[in-house]
């Protein structure tokens, strides 16, 4: 009997990659895609596969590494979250023209909702813009199958192929059947062909023409053609679904007793939509309901909009996740079946916050002390949560803290009383997109303070290493790049490193940095303390400073509001702050924050 294993969608994708002989896999972590690469690495270790897996400094570099591998004749893949694809869009557009030599997959995970992203953008639109085919899996099991489909498609037409899972595929678990891992002998062989791999605009025109021809042929490729799931159903109307909306719809049609009544088509390849399928739909049905996430890509390709009920017609919501309860209403309305709407009470959820003892909290507290009236541009990571206590004013995209800080400076610089600008960026984000912006700030002499929140990891996405860690995805030793040296290399003259847990000293240091920035130019402070998730209980014990709440606490709530450690709380019935021993990690930072000195050490 074949082995059935419980797999996260991302693990199933990873398994699909190794089963199909992927030789180079790269990524930059981002929810919901992060687990793909670590799962590939786990398979690689377990099965002793000779392949290259790595976290790259950002998605663009990750893309370029994997793409180069495929033009040497190795199967390769790059994975990322949807906003990461924005960063990699430059090589994507060009790679589509040049094509591939061996299979190349771009796995771009979307996040309708959004649950953990800045946008709900649809990567399939990027595939459309780049003019490459995209496959849209409905479950972990199908995602695994689509890796094989994708590689075959890529090699049949010499074209990069996108796989577009969404959060509900990436972070669903399902029992998945394991196939054998094919051990392919990898023989890289880069054949020089400058007219293609380094094509000038004249040849690009030719390549573009070829690309259009490929797309026409792909729109007739049988293996990825839409499936009619219930051939027994005959009606004047039909429903077309793709991605996880297909999974919800299959289940709903059965539950609603509509399975035998209305034809349900599942699109596997939303772009390019199969030509014959388009014609069949438009010729043979009166009304067609299209359900897909998050943009109406399939809908856009169906020319006769009078027949189509979807996002463009206003029937299907264009914003937010298509939850099964929303799809239930759509199907009932479309099939003229009775539907009793459910009224859900909106319960305010608990907002996320930095972990108890998180070093970022200390840094933010210090920043507000050092420049109380400052402007605080920030960035993407756990520390985005600094907005809970007013220490984060802007979050735009990876690396923007520095670019925006410069913008704020230039906007204000001719004013008599300029605001101080203190930007925060994580260590991984600084490497990813902060370095060019910092160089620019040096060139323009932007008078601001940059605090690099260096917790020695990429915490938000599951503690992946950074270029400063000196280890790779397989835990193999690698070279480490020193952040302070890098900052100085960018041309910054003022760069200090300190531990934010030493709160008093850290505040003093920040005040000096602010002074420097007012008088001279960019000042950088590296706030270095490891993420608490990476500190073992034993290490923690060694440095523990147990605290307690003294009777001087009058319940003013200052610590709760301005520091927000989850271990400190105040409820209406109490007159004193309560310390939750379960959550407290005994970091001792809160000893310095109470204006009445009511948080004190347990032992004097």
């Amino acid at each position, binding site marked *: 009997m074949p082995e059935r294993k419980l797999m996260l969608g991302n693990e199933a994708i990873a398994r699909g990659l190794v089963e199909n002989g992927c030789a180079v896999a790269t990524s930059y972590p981002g929810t919901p895609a992060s687990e793909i690469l670590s799962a590939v690495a786990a398979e690689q270790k377990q099965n002793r596969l000779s392949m290259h897996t790595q976290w790259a400094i950002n998605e663009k570099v990750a893309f370029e590494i994997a793409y180069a591998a495929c033009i040497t004749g190795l199967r390769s893949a790059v994975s990322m979250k949807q906003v990461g694809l924005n960063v990699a869009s430059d090589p994507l557009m060009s790679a589509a023209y040049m094509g591939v030599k061996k299979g190349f997959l771009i796995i771009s995970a979307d996040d309708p909702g959004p649950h953990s992203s800045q946008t709900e953008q649809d990567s399939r639109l990027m595939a459309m813009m780049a003019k490459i085919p995209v496959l849209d899996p409905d*479950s972990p099991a199908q995602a695994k199958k689509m890796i094989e489909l994708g590689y075959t498609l890529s090699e049949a037409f010499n074209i990069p192929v996108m796989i577009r899972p969404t959060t*509900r595929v990436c972070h*669903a678990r399902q029992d998945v059947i394991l196939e054998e891992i094919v051990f392919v002998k990898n023989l890289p062989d880069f054949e020089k062909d400058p007219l293609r791999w380094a094509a000038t605009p004249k040849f690009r025109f030719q390549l573009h023409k070829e690309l259009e021809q490929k797309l026409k042929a792909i729109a007739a490729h049988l293996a990825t053609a839409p499936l009619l799931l219930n051939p027994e159903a005959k009606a004047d109307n039909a429903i077309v679904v793709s991605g996880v909306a297909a999974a919800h719809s299959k289940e709903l049609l059965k539950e609603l007793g509509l399975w035998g009544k209305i034809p349900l088509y599942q699109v596997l390849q939303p772009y390019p939509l199969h030509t014959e399928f388009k014609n069949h739909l438009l010729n043979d049905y009166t009304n067609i309901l299209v359900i897909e996430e998050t943009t109406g890509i399939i809908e856009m390709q169906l020319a006769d909009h009078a027949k189509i009920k979807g996002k463009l017609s206003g029937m299907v919501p264009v914003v937010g996740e298509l939850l099964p309860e929303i799809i239930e209403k759509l199907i009932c309305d479309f099939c003229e079946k009775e539907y009793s709407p*459910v009224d859900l009470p909106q319960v305010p959820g*608990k907002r996320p916050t930095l972990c108890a003892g998180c070093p970022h909290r200390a840094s933010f507290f210090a920043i507000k002390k050092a420049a109380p009236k400052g402007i605080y541009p920030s960035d993407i990571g756990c520390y985005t949560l600094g907005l809970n206590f007013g220490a984060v004013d802007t979050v735009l995209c990876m690396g923007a803290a520095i670019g925006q800080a410069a913008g704020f400076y230039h906007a204000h610089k001719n004013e008599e009383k300029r605001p101080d600008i203190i930007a925060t960026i994580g260590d991984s984000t600084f490497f990813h997109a902060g370095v060019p912006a910092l160089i620019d700030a040096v060139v323009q002499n932007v008078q601001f303070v940059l605090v690099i929140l260096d917790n020695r990891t990429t915490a938000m996405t599951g503690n992946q290493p950074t270029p400063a860690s000196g280890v790779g995805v397989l835990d193999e030793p690698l070279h480490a790049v020193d952040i302070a040296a890098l900052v100085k290399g960018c041309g910054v003259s003022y760069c200090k490193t300190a531990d934010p847990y030493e709160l008093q000293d850290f505040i003093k240091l920040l005040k000096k940095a602010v002074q420097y920035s007012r008088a001279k130019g960019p000042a950088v402070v590296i706030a270095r303390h490891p993420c608490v998730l990476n500190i073992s209980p034993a290490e923690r014990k060694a440095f523990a400073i147990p605290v307690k709440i003294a009777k001087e606490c009058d319940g003013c709530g200052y610590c709760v509001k301005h520091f927000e450690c989850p271990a400190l709380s105040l409820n209406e019935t109490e007159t004193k702050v309560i310390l939750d021993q379960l959550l407290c990690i005994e970091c001792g930072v809160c000893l310095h924050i109470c204006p009445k000195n009511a948080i004190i050490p347990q032992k004097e």
Partner: protein
Amino acid sequence: MQQIQNQQYVISGVGGQGVLFITRLLAETAILKGLPVFTAETHGMAQRGGIVLSHLKVGNFYSPLIRPFQADGLIALKAEAFEAHKHYLKPDSWAVVNKKQVPRQTKNSSFIAIDANHLAQKIDNFRSINLIMLGFAMAKAGNASNLFCTSQDLEIVLSQRLANNKNFHHTALKAFNTGFSEGRNE
């Protein structure tokens, strides 16, 4: 394959409590029993102390998500998680909630509260609230409905998963059994 009725459960709590861990245990137990299974999980920002939610569907399903009023049971590791997710429950369902007092009793449903924080303190294992709750749920729901697995099945999977970590294995089983006996004794 064994024939069972389709079953849908919601497990919720706040980030860091180990909602994912017990969801995975249950899902692996389903596989042990030869049953098809789906889960949907919360990852990312909410894991930093926000409300997290897992859906678990055992049987013949296509979608990983549970619709409102469809769940057979709910395990809430925090009282506020129960408030946030009780709308998933259908009539005749059960819920076990980590809370000091019994929550409002709703018609046709059995909602049972347990003070798992206190029990965790008693066995000196603050990180084990999730397993205490799971044990308790097994004791309570095991009788009430035709659950797809027994507490023995869960213990087998727990032992498989933690085979390489003797210490953790021991404390995990202890927590699970603490919750289970609490459920049986009441």
